């Protein structure tokens, strides 16, 4: 590898204090690269976010001028709204079920496909196929037909319907998400391809077992991608909307069992027109997800390996 040779030469100067002009130039370069993002973040992201934060302290109802109500939305949410807490419970249950299942399935399939010589393209397309659909009305109807009384699952296992029982409906919705594991699978596959083959060849020469190779090469080299999928799927799971909205026809039923957080948020904001309240819900969610993500980032230091920082 030519890189190894240059690496030795590079390491010396790198350790020294870099000359100032170079540094300034690089800092300037960074802002050039960032400029589209900065513009987008200010106009299309920060501004709407600021407005929604402001609205969360008002009684904004979409049609009339917002009136400042202080923390009323927040106190009402925490103390007077049992349905809010039901939605929190449903969402947490969903996150705990759907995220690990979906990621595990995506990783297992990606690993299986990686080791495959023939038919990889076919399998990859076939496994991705459900994810092409999104969660449209029609797939929701198919899902309900399968998981309803007298549906396929009922006929095969005699479990009765799922989508019409408060204790089971959430699983049916979670399965819809798990079923569409194409995106994390493709990202895992892309990550697997980025692992240099030489690493495995070298390990093979050393006589390392497959399992050993998986643990000491695949997992660390793939860890940035595993981390990405974990963070993103967790964030998305907290915001789960479309599958439940479609399967329960927007109601989050039966008996509020699939009334996920954002579904209830939508209901408050756009059905009941309490956009102030919905904005407050959104900011509480942001803080909750932020906390969970921060914890994930904190733990990542001990298990995520970045080649660019590997020699530190």
């Amino acid at each position, binding site marked *: 590898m030519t890189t190894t040779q240059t690496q030795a030469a590079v390491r010396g100067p790198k350790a020294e204090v870099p000359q100032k002009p170079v540094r300034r130039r690089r800092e300037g370069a960074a802002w050039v690269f960032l400029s589209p993002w900065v513009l987008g973040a200010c106009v299309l992201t920060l501004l709407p976010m600021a407005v929604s934060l402001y609205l969360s302290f008002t009684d904004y109802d979409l049609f009339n001028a917002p009136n400042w109500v202080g923390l009323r939305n927040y106190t009402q949410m925490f103390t007077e709204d049992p349905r809010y807490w039901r939605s929190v419970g449903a969402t947490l249950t969903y996150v705990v079920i759907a995220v690990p299942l979906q990621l595990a399935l995506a990783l297992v399939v990606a690993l299986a496909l990686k080791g495959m010589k023939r038919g990889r393209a076919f399998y990859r397309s076939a496994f991705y196929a459900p994810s092409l659909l999104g969660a449209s009305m029609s797939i929701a109807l*198919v899902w309900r037909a399968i998981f309803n009384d007298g549906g396929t699952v009922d006929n095969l296992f005699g479990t009765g319907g799922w989508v019409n029982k408060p204790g089971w409906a959430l699983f049916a919705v979670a399965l819809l998400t798990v079923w569409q594991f194409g995106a994390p699978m493709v990202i895992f596959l892309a990550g697997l391809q980025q692992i240099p083959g030489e690493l495995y060849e070298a390990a093979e020469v050393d006589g390392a077992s497959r399992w050993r190779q998986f643990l000491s090469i695949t997992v660390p080299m793939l860890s940035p991608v595993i981390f990405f999928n974990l963070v993103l799927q967790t964030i998305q799971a907290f915001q789960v909307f479309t599958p439940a909205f479609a399967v329960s026809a927007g109601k989050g039923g039966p008996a509020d069992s699939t009334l996920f957080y954002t579904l209830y948020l939508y209901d408050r904001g756009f059905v009941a027109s309490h956009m102030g309240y919905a904005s407050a819900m959104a900011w509480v969610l942001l803080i909750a997800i932020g906390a969970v993500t921060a914890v994930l980032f904190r733990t990542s230091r001990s298990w995520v390996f970045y080649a660019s920082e590997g020699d530190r």
Partner: protein
Amino acid sequence: MTTTTPTTVARKPLDWRRVALHAGCLAALLVMLYPLAWLLATSVKPADEVIASLNLLPGKLEWSNYETALDGVNDVSVTRLLTNSLLIAGGAVIGNVISCSLAAYAFARLRFRFRGPLFAFMIATIMLPHHAVLIPQYIIFNQLGMVNTYWPLILPKFLATEAFFVFLIVQFMRGLPRELEEAARIDGCGPFRSFFSVILPLTRPALITTAIFTFIWTWNDFFTQLIYLFSPEKFTLTLALRSFVDASSTSAFGPMFAMSVIALLPIVLFFLAFQRFLVEGMANSGIKG
């Protein structure tokens, strides 16, 4: 250890591990594709069989579902709708690949002030449910005179507002050894040249993933298209098809399933055409040096 040795004249002994792998994959596929088969079958079922019948296969083929589904869009030609869809999805792909890789490079490989906080802010932008910012965003685009144009659908992509992809590319870039750029720097490359000629080619799997996801997600993004487009001649295929299926008025499940299948076809073709690029990763990108 199954190392695939070159086959000799003698017949290769049956590789049980591989057989098991294929059998496992096929069995999993059978379960996974069942709902899709259901969708396809239902699209040609007559109305009284759609929900009531438990048979996967339709009792009689009802092709008129497809006619009805396409009926809705007769005012605007399907070619026009398809062109609109392609224009938006194509614009989004270009925008996302360019802007997200630029931003990702800065976050992953360059040093600048407030990098940590800005990165945290970027991640935070995907934590706020989009319903909460929908109206402010609509107002901004309305004030900019962009409602009922394609700008609200494409412009955000050129401004790297999809943190999902920025973060994705960041993670891939951070996986590349730092020595690469340092070598390039020794050769006299500035950050721009090392971005274009060293880092970008090596991030290809992530860029292709970004392109494919952007295309599919933009194609399926009924909601944004619905909110920002007014004139039917500006509608996308997804929007036109879905607009016409109003579940609340009359029995239209058959046509609705047919419509789903029609709307699905272009992205299936797109995925089949481009998924092979997903394979080319390291092998062709020359990290071996």
